């Protein structure tokens, strides 16, 4: 099964459950009335929560992305060392 299909299936399943409960499609009214006040906007809440989570994660990872200054300095020093050594061995750049 492709990832796209997995997503569609999961969303369809959740969507159907939500619609059945909120719109009371089966006519059973299994939940106390107060629950419907939560249930109705639930998808919007989840979407907003996921959006915030995404922004938080990307923001944190952006801020904590290592700059590797040390690695860059080390490389520069090694480049000089390499050039000298290769030139000594007869390399013409």
């Amino acid at each position: 099964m492709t990832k796209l299909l997995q997503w569609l299936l999961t969303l369809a399943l959740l969507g159907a459950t939500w619609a059945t409960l909120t719109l009371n499609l089966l006519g059973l009214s299994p939940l106390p009335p107060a629950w419907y006040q939560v249930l109705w906007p639930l998808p919007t809440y989840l979407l907003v929560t996921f959006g915030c989570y995404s922004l938080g994660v990307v923001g944190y990872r952006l801020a904590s992305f290592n700059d590797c200054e040390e690695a860059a300095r080390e490389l520069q020093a090694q480049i000089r060392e390499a050039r000298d050594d290769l030139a000594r061995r007869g390399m013409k750049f």
Partner: protein
Amino acid sequence: MAASRDKYSVLLPTYNERENLPLIVWLLMRSFEQSGNDFEIIVIDDGSPDGTQEIAEQLIKIYGSDKILLRPRAKKLGLGTAYVHGMKHATGNFIIIMDADLSHHPKFIPEFIRRQKEGNFDIVSGTRYKGNGGVHGWDVKRKLISRGANFLTQILLRPGASDLTGSFRLYKKEVLQKLIEKCVSKGYVFQMEMIVRARQLGYSIGEVPISFVDRVYGESKLGGNEIVSFLKGLLTLFATT
């Protein structure tokens, strides 16, 4: 012991890298001499007009034709076919792929080898996104695009590896051969597809944090075109794998 007979073939695809090639080869030689692993370096040059091949010839004279192999091609062809071409001449049972532009430092190779042995992994991938990994020479915008693209990829594909677009990796030779047969994409997406297909085929993936120092010589490229083709590739993989 079988382990001591392991040989590592480093594939270096080049195009106009006459500045970088001697330096990367020097660093590779030193890294392997220090770690004591058996190795060879295969330079796959796509007909560079800047004399990269002449530089490679000089390196062969210095280091020997058993350590440096020049296997050029007539013109610029895809990265996937460069690996296929290089593998035809590789005598190692492991293949290391990396960029020749000094953004990937050979000092990490012994860590790749250690990690591979730890878990007998089929693939060990360098990662810029974990532990001490990171990048040098990127501004905030570039970092944001990179982090954003990586997050989106992780959500959509759940690939089981943190750095999908990186190209510093160690493969068991037969694993790389199988994967290349399966992969159809180009550029950034090619590296991503390799990991996704590896996951599908049940190969194990280990990771080593690496520092990525963006091109010292020459231009680094990330334009709108790259971003669009990345997104296209991501969605294609999302819909087909």
